[in-house]
């Protein structure tokens, strides 16, 4: 599990049984994100997924905020095109994924939550590696 310093502190504070068998390593990958870069990543998305397209249509027709969120939460990401999920995570960026990691660790109730945090940290690690390999300073 690759964690940034603040995340390591949260992880260390978890009950011992939740941390069992998980080795927390330091995430050293760097990427200077910005509003402009995030917007650009969103503009480069190419999503062709019928489930997400249906959601977008349903969201337009939703009668209330709560309805819209309920529709979103009914989506089963396992059925969504893997490329679309990968592109969306990339567009959100490593800092957002970091935010989710913090959320998941903070509210962790069982080993499955920690396994989710570990998966997210692995995702972010790969994302940072790809960004470091391809995005160079001018």
């Amino acid at each position, binding site marked *: 599990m690759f964690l940034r310093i603040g995340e390591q502190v949260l992880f260390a504070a978890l009950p011992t049984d939740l941390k069992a068998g998980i080795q927390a390593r330091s995430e050293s990958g760097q990427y200077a994100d910005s509003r402009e870069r995030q917007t650009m990543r969103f503009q480069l998305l190419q999503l062709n997924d019928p489930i997400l397209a249906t959601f977008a249509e349903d969201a337009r027709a939703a009668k209330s905020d709560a309805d819209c969120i309920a529709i979103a*939460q009914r989506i089963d990401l396992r059925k969504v095109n*893997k490329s679309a999920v990968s592109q*969306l995570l990339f567009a959100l960026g490593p800092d957002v994924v970091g935010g*989710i990691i913090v959320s998941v660790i903070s509210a962790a109730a069982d080993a499955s939550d920690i396994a989710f945090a570990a*998966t997210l940290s692995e995702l972010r690690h790969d994302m940072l590696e790809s960004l470091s390999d391809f995005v160079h300073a001018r």
Partner: protein
Amino acid sequence: MIATIDRSNGATLTFSDIKHALYDGDSSTKTDLDVLRHIFDNKRQNVEEQLLSSPKLLEKFKGRKRVLKREISGLLDRSRDQIQHLAASRDFEKKSGKKGIIRRFASFAARHKVVTALLAFAAAAGGVAGSFYLAGNWELLLANVALLRKQIAGGVGAALPVLDPATKALDGTGLEGVPRGTGITL
């Protein structure tokens, strides 16, 4: 304080201008990808010189070489950024797909519905099914996001301003001519 005057008279350099300047009469047979390859296969200085000596571009900028140079520099910087991010995105997709991390993420997200909702709203923000875009529905979306934010603990909520009405939709041909979603090998 020195006042600066914008002498461009509103002229803006577009990706299409670059294509015509580089290929002239041959431009109709060239794709955006050809242009990008040309930009990245050649030294930047050479590309800039080639563009600066284009009579058509000079005419568009009424002979103001300095303004044209600034425009060229900005557009080449943006194109480079876009290409690099596209390449990084493809690399990430390949890497994470091979390891099965996306599949694992999707399975866990089934239990974490707020994360599912975040991705769904991101999809709506980015546009799905090619050119689909919630152009007239941003207010509804933002209201949803505000409510969603309340449900999210920790730092995830802070990331949501990305769902901003200022994020412009693309016309389907890609940002300033960068092809959307095509595999690009640098």
